[in-house]
């Protein structure tokens, strides 16, 4: 039995009379790549905001990295990484300045930042770009860098909110290789995506519809259960509201 790093029990989030998350319950394990799917407006973003400590649940028990999402949001923030669909690095700063900034925000010491910058740049073969402005880099490189920056403080869990939106297929493939490497290091990946081929790469996926989780299993089991060729077919069968 693997360690549970995210545990959600009967999570409900209401905005006035609108129920964005209706009684969600699921667990995510250490080192797992967990795909979080759903049509737009199904309640994914609300759930991610709660899991990353940005908003408090209306009711239910949510534990992330061992901390309660309602009361210990600040502790959660220190232990997770986050990369959102919109671009998350500053275009008018250089690669090095961006890394230093985020290292500083996460409270890393100067010497630690310097050594991690070195490791990171070497891993991405980015040495040549160290002093280039982000705006001069192609989108694919930026996304890889943004992912690496989200890992800079060695979080236990990384939330990736549509990380590959607008990226070419080759870079997407490379990006997923990075995700696999990261998961192999024991870091949990919680990823949302609209690309169904990417969903196939996940260890387990959950599909949300109208605020509820309507399916949660490995891609293979889901395909068998719904008698479908691909995850995309599964998605179309059950995610349509």
């Amino acid at each position, binding site marked *: 039995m693997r360690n549970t790093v995210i545990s959600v029990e009967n999570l409900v989030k209401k905005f006035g009379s609108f129920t964005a998350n209706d009684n969600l319950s699921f667990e995510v394990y250490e080192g797992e790549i967990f795909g979080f799917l759903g049509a737009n407006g199904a309640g994914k973003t609300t759930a991610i905001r709660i899991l990353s400590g*940005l908003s408090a649940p209306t009711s239910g028990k949510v534990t992330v990295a061992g901390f309660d999402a309602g009361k210990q949001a600040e502790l959660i923030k220190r232990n997770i990484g986050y*990369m959102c669909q919109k*671009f*998350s690095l500053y275009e*008018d700063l250089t690669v090095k*300045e961006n890394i230093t900034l*985020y290292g500083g*925000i996460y*409270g890393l010491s100067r010497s630690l930042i310097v050594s991690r910058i070195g490791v990171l740049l070497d891993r991405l073969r980015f040495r040549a770009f160290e002093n280039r402005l982000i705006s001069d880099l192609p989108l694919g490189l930026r996304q890889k860098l943004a992912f690496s920056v989200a890992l800079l403080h060695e979080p236990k869990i990384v939330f990736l909110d549509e990380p590959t939106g607008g990226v070419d297929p080759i870079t997407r493939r490379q990006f997923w290789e990075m995700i696999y490497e990261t998961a192999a290091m024991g870091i949990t990946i919680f990823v949302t995506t609209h690309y169904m081929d990417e969903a196939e790469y996940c260890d387990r996926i959950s599909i949300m519809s109208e605020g509820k989780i309507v399916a949660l299993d490995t891609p293979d089991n889901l395909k068998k259960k719904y008698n479908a060729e691909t995850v995309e077919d599964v998605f179309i069968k059950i995610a349509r509201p």
Partner: protein
Amino acid sequence: MNRFLGFVRKEFLHIFRDYRTLVILFGIPVAQILIFGFAVSMDIKNAGVAFLDLSHDEMTQKLSDKIISSGFFIKTEELLSYKDIDRVLKKGKTKAVIIFEEHFGRRLIRDGKASLSIIADGSEPNTATLITNYTTAIVNDFNMGIAPAQITGAMRIVPEVKMFYNPGLQSHFMFVPGVITLILILICALMTSVTITREKEFGTMEVLLVSPLRPIQIILGKVTPYFLLSFINVLLILALSWFVFGLPVKGSIVLLLAESMLYILMSLSLGILISTVSSTMQQAIFISLIGLMLPTILLSGFIFPIENMPKIYDYVSSIVPPRYFIIIIKNIMIKGTGLMYIWKETLILTVMTIVFIVISVRKFKIRLE
């Protein structure tokens, strides 16, 4: 603390990498001071006047010489008949025609009175009023000079007017405080609201919010560089107005700087407030420009005195913060008064600052929910 400093450093980098921000920060204040100081002059200097002298005697000669030598006027033409008046005013260079009646000098000495008419170009009401006032003053002065010797008769009371604090009635005395007031609120509110909404638009705010930085640290980090730069701006404007216009600070410079800091703080918190209600940079710019610039120019007493407005505008202007700062800064710079005379305005600004900060912190939190 390290987190915070790193964040502030990043803000400075944003500012210095973007030359447009620098131009707005420092170019506009300098340009405004120079434009308002030189171009938008409320005094008259070298206004064109023409004379229609139907008398041509020693007295009219003396009086017209006196008018010209005052330095406010230059003579454009010497007219021969009433018919020329319309023509010369239409040409535009001449702003007023001064007419001496027939036998001006003789009547003045014999009857003790003679008449002089001023026909001014009313299409420019401000200039027309100024010209008539100035001319009347010169004529009065002339009267005084000749009265005891040549005119006998009724005793007259002649008011002697003296302008305290601004003896030359120079308009930069009015503009420099106004421009400081306008520039500070514009730059502070505009820049802060834009820099915060920019992070929202680019999606970087999202990342900052999930980081361990607290919302208050994010806000302070955004605002600190602008606080420092705005303060440098105040020094720059004061230095400029001293070197270019010779405008001194009569009161305590320390008090002036302290009040400026309060006003900067108020403007920054207003900027944060604007950023919480706008989701794009355009919106923030629009609200800052329309919502702040017009009220500051029209309702703060910068150009139009509040006392002359209908009561309703007076009430509206009482919620316009620059109104109070203008009073404060004019008092300190021009009259040289101390805190004793401006504590009420200072208090109002302090309360406004606190209210803005409280509302924006609330709003910022609501956004997170």
